């Protein structure tokens, strides 16, 4: 609808934001009510005679719907001041059209109840987000990112379609509910195909190559939605597929867990090597998808080994991390968007000192950083804590599962440490220290519609971190919808856990307040002066002497060199009167490198060989058609 009003810029924007926002709010309340009351609701519509579209909302769908609608509501509010370039009105109107399509499609994906409906919604979602990625299409890099995304999402969709094809071939129906009757060999095939397909949407290593290109290319509110919730539809797909196949075999859990650990560690290592703020955040999505998959994988192993506590803790931790990641990742993308908006650059090493000029953004970003590093008393800690507990419960199992749980626990510990290193880099280099460029020096934040969502999200991080007792039952309801056979899941032991976390958080706050009071008392009547930083005897410091993000990460990256090859371009400093020199480093993604070498090039070479088929002679083309019909007549 806003498309019709593109000539009236402000009216168009307001209308778009209000209508989309109202829709999200409506959906949010509805999903929340459905989750609280439980049960499932379904609806079906006829479509193109042979098929019909059917939808069903159970607790799992409602759980995902809540994060979808909540994040989209805030993102669309944020976009009101983000897109403020009036001459681009038509483009912005189109952007809102696809934005609303994307939100609708995501909601349909998580409620779809048969193969056709799911595939249709999935494609609408992929295509609308593709158009959002290439919003700034004049830029060649953005077009390339969009193209890469299209290739990945369509290839992924092919895998999902293949999985659905196998399901249809065996069950002969489009119904999701008939999937449970498949033979076991087919179930494994379906799960692996679907895992690859959904994994490419979720950004599981090595199918994540589109993510670090597409997220920086998209406008920030869109990145927030894509990274915060859209990639979670991939997780939804994996979890839903697991529940539909209804076969508790450890193999599924093992696949998911290993993929999770690999994506988790490599995602954060690559993130550490990035120089572009939004690209860095995109790699962190790979990492967090890894954490979610670790949780879900442990849950699946627990379900297979008939360890109810382990299974429920794993699934609940993974699903709660879906919500948590949606909150802090969209917060961080909005913060990055604000930085981009205020300074015009995403290059980490040319920013600095922004906290002084952008107080609200800086504080919100700091809270998001603490949360994504999994530190107490914020929300990231809660879900990681649950996954840890599940992992420790798994240590009682047999050899393979024991080993995998050890890998998961140690992997989570390493991921946590690396994420901390990465976000101290971002906060330290972007928001602290002295500005490294003119743009960073003059930055100032603007647009109340951009603050409000960030403040709400930061508050959400703290609320879930301090009072997980209100949010964990939501995740538990979603887990009970998986049909693991543990219904009803008793709430009390889990509320005991969250109660402990609340207590610990309260303890931290009390101790902190005591120290704050002590500090106030100690500084009363003292002289406090301000002067330049102590340069260890060096008297003429310049801002260029500060530690940069590249130098900060260098030693850690050195450690991970086999997985993350670093190329450097630095001629060095020579002579008594050194000339100007430069340093450029680039960290290569091994998935990208090998996919290019092993997969893409042979395929391209093969199709090059077939080029003679396409010669432009219309007569021969008609001949092809005739030939095809004749062949079909023989075979069909």
């Amino acid at each position, binding site marked *: 609808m806003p498309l019709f009003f593109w000539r009236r810029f402000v009216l168009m924007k307001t209308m778009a934001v209000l209508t989309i926002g109202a829709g999200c709010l409506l959906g949010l309340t509805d999903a929340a009510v459905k989750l609280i009351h439980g049960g499932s609701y379904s609806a079906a519509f006829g479509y193109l005679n042979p098929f019909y579209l059917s939808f069903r909302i159970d607790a799992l769908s409602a759980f995902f719907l809540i994060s979808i609608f909540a994040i989209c509501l805030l993102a669309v509010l944020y976009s009101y001041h983000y897109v403020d370039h009036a001459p681009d009105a038509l483009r912005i109107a189109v952007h809102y059209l696809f934005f609303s399509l994307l939100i609708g499609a995501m909601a349909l994906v998580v409620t779809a109840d048969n193969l056709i409906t799911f595939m249709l919604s999935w494609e609408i979602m992929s295509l609308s987000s593709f158009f959002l990625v290439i919003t700034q299409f004049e830029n060649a890099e953005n077009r390339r990112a969009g193209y890469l995304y299209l290739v990945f999402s369509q290839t992924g969709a092919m895998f999902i379609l293949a999985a659905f094809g196998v399901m249809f071939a065996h069950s002969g129906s489009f119904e999701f509910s008939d999937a449970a009757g498949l033979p076991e060999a087919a179930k494994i095939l379906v799960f692996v195909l679907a895992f690859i397909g959904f994994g490419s949407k979720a950004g599981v290593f090595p199918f994540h190559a589109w993510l670090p290109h597409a997220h920086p290319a998209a406008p920030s509110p869109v990145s927030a939605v894509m990274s915060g919730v859209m990639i979670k539809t991939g997780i939804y797909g994996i979890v839903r597929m697991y529940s539909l196949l209804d076969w508790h075999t450890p193999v599924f859990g093992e696949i998911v867990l290993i993929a999770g650990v690999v994506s988790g560690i490599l995602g954060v290592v690559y993130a550490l090597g990035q120089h572009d703020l939004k690209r860095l955040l995109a790699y962190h999505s790979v990492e967090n998808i890894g954490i979610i998959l670790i949780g879900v994988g442990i849950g699946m192993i627990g379900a297979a080994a008939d360890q109810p506590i382990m299974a429920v803790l794993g699934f609940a931790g993974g699903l709660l991390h879906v919500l948590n990641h949606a909150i802090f990742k969209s917060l961080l993308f909005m913060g990055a968007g604000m930085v981009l908006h205020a300074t015009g650059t995403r290059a980490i090493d040319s920013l600095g000192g922004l906290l*002084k000029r952008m107080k609200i953004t800086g504080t919100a970003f700091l809270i998001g950083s*603490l949360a994504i*590093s*999994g*530190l*107490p008393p914020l929300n990231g*800690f809660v879900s990681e*804590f649950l996954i*840890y*507990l599940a992992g*420790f419960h798994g*240590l*009682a199992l047999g050899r393979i599962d024991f080993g995998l749980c*050890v890998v998961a626990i*140690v992997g*989570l*510990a*390493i991921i*946590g*440490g*690396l994420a*901390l*290193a990465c*976000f*101290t880099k971002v*906060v*330290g280099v972007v928001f*602290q*220290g002295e500005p490294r460029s003119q743009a960073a020096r003059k930055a100032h934040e603007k647009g109340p519609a951009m603050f409000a969502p960030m403040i709400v999200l930061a508050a959400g991080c703290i609320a879930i971190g301090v009072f997980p007792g209100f949010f964990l039952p939501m995740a538990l309801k979603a887990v009970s919808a998986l049909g693991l056979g543990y219904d009803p899941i008793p709430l009390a032991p889990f509320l005991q*856990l969250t109660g*402990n*976390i609340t*207590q*610990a958080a309260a303890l*931290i706050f009390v*101790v*902190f307040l005591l*120290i*704050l009071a002590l*500090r106030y008392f*100690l*500084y009363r009547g*003292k002289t*406090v*002066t*301000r*002067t*330049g*930083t*102590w*340069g*260890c005897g060096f008297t003429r410091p310049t*801002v260029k002497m*500060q*530690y940069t993000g590249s130098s*900060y990460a260098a*030693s*850690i990256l*050195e*450690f991970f060199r086999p997985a993350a090859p670093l190329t450097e371009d630095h001629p060095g400093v020579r002579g008594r009167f050194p000339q100007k020199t430069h340093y450029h480093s680039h960290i290569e993604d091994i998935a990208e490198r090998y996919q290019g070498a092993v997969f893409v090039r042979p395929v391209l070479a093969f199709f090059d060989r077939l080029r003679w088929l396409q010669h432009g002679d219309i007569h021969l083309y008609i001949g092809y058609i005739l030939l095809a019909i004749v062949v079909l007549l023989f075979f069909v």
Partner: protein
Amino acid sequence: MNSIIFLTLAMLLAPLYAGLIIKVKAFFGGRKGSPLLIHYYTLAKLLKKGSVYSTSTTVIFKLGPMVSLCTAATALMFLPIAGQPPLFSFTGDVILVLYLFGLGRFFTIAAAMDTASPFEGMGAAREAYFPIICEATLFMILILFYTLSGELNLAAYFSGDRPLALWQTAGAPLLFVVIAFFIVLLTENSRVPVDDPTTHLELTMIHEVMVLDHSGPDFAFIELGAFFKLFFFSTLVARLICPVTLTHPAAAAVLFLGVLGLVYVAVGVTESVMARYRMDKVPQFVLTSFALAFFATVITLEFLR
């Protein structure tokens, strides 16, 4: 009641024990050394002073010392001292405590990055790097503890009627665990051979260079937090070596404080007989601890379960 007394005792004694390390080093150097109470004098002196803040800094610079002291003090509340039950305890509190140290580290690093000083950035980068491996080691040790005791809280490992009596069940692997723990202790608390707080060149420091710009009570908070943290890790090592809890609290305290003194002396001896490793060798040293913890787990599982 006992827990509160012991907690207060720990908080009061932490600086004294850190002074012990200096004394041991002086002994090895053939010097008389500063008095045992040196750290109390320093703290009192710092608390009396005012502060100088860099113009580059923000509020995070002031938060850094407070958070690092807060997390270290909170961690002590979960620590069973001398075999007594800690003030707070619940399933999974070990994970919370390890992540609390992470929180403290985040703010120490952020405060260092706040000053725009290249030296502090350098220290911060190292501070972010080495503890990653330490965390992996600590979780590996936790896995061993969990498989031995089936519990996931500090109180179950180090206090109560059935503390982790590793000497009886798993003597040989325990030696590995103690060494691994000791390496983690040295790394986490920036001691030689990972970091040398007394060196003259800022370029070669880790923790000391990060707190260069702090002064007055802020710096006292940082020092106190560091003493608490060292006390925390030393207590764990001491309880691993000597899991015996005497029935009378006072006797238990004396025994514990004696063993704890031995751990601090061991730190002092290590510092006296070793030089700091080259920075690029440190990861290998810390990785050794992970390997030890890993093999301890493997051995325990193969032969004892």
